[in-house]
């Protein structure tokens, strides 16, 4: 059978194509452009080939930041996913408690990122912050600006506070979509709470968990605003993640070429890791 082609259909997708071109493709191409050329201003460009890439990949600074990023994402996933599931399991399913819990859960998600950073920065300051001052008074000297461990603790706790809700809400959505009959059947079988979780709730939450893990991984891997506000990448470079490093390089030092090369490498790493996560987690679905 011959397919009828209607070229008018292209006009329908044109707005989207234009939008994507201006929002993603063209900026990305600019970065690609910078990454293979050198400039001294005045709009003069010199071909640099893969020099910037080799320079970035050879620098210890890049690898240190990458390791910090990976460590941070691992810690965040290890805390937020189980905690999110645990909270979702214990949220009420009926009655007035539902909207109340949902609102409290959604609140942190509604606060702008730099405000979250400012809140926690103030909270953790050793001189005037409730947490920082309080801990110090209790005999646990706490100074995120001086001690790398304290800085990490601050950023991790802040991120957990800010983003665990997202995992909770996704898991909760997955949980409430399980028909009541499953729980009844399990009850009739005499299945334990753990068995219900292991054999009913967890498999039924698999899809939303996949989304939660992907979102939390990508977000935590690209974290910028909060550590920038709280620690500015310090003390030393202990909380300098790739994104912070990138901005330092591009804006602080005006090294546009290496910064562009680093952006592309960074982007490819996020893409690659997300793809690996996705493939591993959806593998079991195929028969």
């Amino acid at each position, binding site marked *: 059978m011959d397919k009828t082609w209607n070229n008018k259909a292209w006009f329908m997708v044109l707005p989207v194509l234009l939008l994507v071109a201006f929002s993603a493709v063209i900026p990305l191409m600019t970065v690609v452009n910078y990454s293979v050329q050198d400039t001294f201003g005045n709009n003069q460009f010199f071909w640099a080939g893969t020099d910037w890439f080799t320079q970035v990949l050879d620098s210890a600074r890049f690898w240190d930041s990458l390791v910090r990023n990976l460590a941070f994402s691992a810690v965040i996933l290890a805390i937020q996913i189980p905690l999110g599931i645990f909270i979702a399991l214990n949220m009420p399913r009926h009655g007035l408690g539902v909207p109340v819990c949902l609102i409290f859960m959604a609140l942190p998600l509604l606060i702008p990122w730099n405000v979250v950073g400012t809140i926690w920065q103030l909270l953790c300051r050793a001189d005037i912050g409730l947490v920082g001052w309080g801990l110090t008074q209790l005999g646990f000297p706490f100074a995120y600006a001086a001690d790398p461990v304290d800085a990490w603790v601050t950023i991790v706790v802040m991120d957990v506070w800010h983003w665990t809700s997202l995992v909770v809400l996704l898991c909760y959505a997955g949980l409430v979509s399980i028909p009541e*009959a499953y729980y*009844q*059947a399990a*009850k*009739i*079988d005499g*299945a334990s709470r753990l*068995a219900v979780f292991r054999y009913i709730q*967890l498999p039924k939450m698999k899809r939303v968990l996949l989304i939660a893990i992907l979102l939390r991984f990508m977000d935590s891997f690209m974290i910028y605003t909060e550590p920038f506000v709280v620690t500015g990448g310090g003390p030393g470079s202990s909380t300098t993640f790739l994104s912070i490093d990138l901005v330092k390089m591009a804006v602080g030092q005006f090294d546009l070429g290496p910064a562009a090369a680093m952006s592309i490498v960074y982007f490819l790493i996020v893409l690659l890791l997300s793809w690996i996560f996705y493939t591993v987690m959806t593998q079991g679905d195929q028969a």
Partner: protein
Amino acid sequence: MLELRHVEKIVGRDTHVHATSLALERGSLNVLLGPTLSGKTSLMRLMAGLDTPTAGSVWFDGKDVTGVRVQDRGVAMVYQQFINYPALTVYENIASPMRIKGADKATIDREVRKAAELLKLTPYLDRTPLNLSGGQQQRTALARAIVKNASLVLLDEPLANLDYKLREELRLELPKIFAASGAIFVYATTEPSEALLLGGNTATMSEGRITQFGRTIDVYRRPNDLLTARTFADPPLNAMDVVKRNGQFTAGDRPLLAVPPHLSQLADGPCTIAFHPHHLSLSSQAPGSAPLQARTAISEIAGSESFVHIEFEGSRWVMLSPGIHDIEPDALITVHVDTRHLMAFGMDGRALGAPVAMAA
């Protein structure tokens, strides 16, 4: 024997089940027949012990089990949705009730294979439920119920989500599959034809009450009241308010039908007459049939039968006629009522007279 003694279930302000008493024998097949929200599932949950009754008690083999937890009662339940453990294989799903009970490996393997064989699941034992057809998923759920060796098996519209052909097939097999176990079966359905095909006993339900309980065929042939008759009719029962006078049923002083012999004892006065759609026909072949002039509304063809909706003296009736008929809407036709099957109800809905036993 399972006995419900005046059990009642009230949730908030809604009465889900009005005070109900019912006794079900071991080895019996019992159908709960009623429309959606008539209380079938609520009653089943009370029988199972998933809910505790607001009032009344549940007895099993002479023991009060009202407060006994569901997992300690020996109950198996199959639902309208296909409920299996999603991440476990068919084998593990069927084995799950026995694993919880702590049966040994050899017993589990033997029982699982036996049940799988019975339900034609042997080739699929290594698959997960999501990779099975709806019918196979439901068979898996049924197999889980079988290996449990429960003394009470509750089937809550188990075939409703299956396609027509699979439904027919499983419906024929179900009584056979469970026959050997000697358990009490309760089967909830919204379809009168399903109750008739399954046989056994039927309890018709309406708005949280059991309107009648008895042998399925008796309930169908001799309903106690109009509500039961209506519940046990699909397509809907044809009914009309008439007045019996001088051996005739009359409407607005006009004689409609001669009173058939089985209703001749009826006192003169107002009553409701009713009959099933297949007792209305286009031909006058059946003895005792009486002709009526009616106006056609719509005609639907369902397989090898036609549903003809007609209007007669302000009542909307359905005629189920074998064969495919091309009937013009809004035309005057002559239809014939088989008066031997006429049922009569008093104005309070109670049955006054039912047809003598004969092929329905």
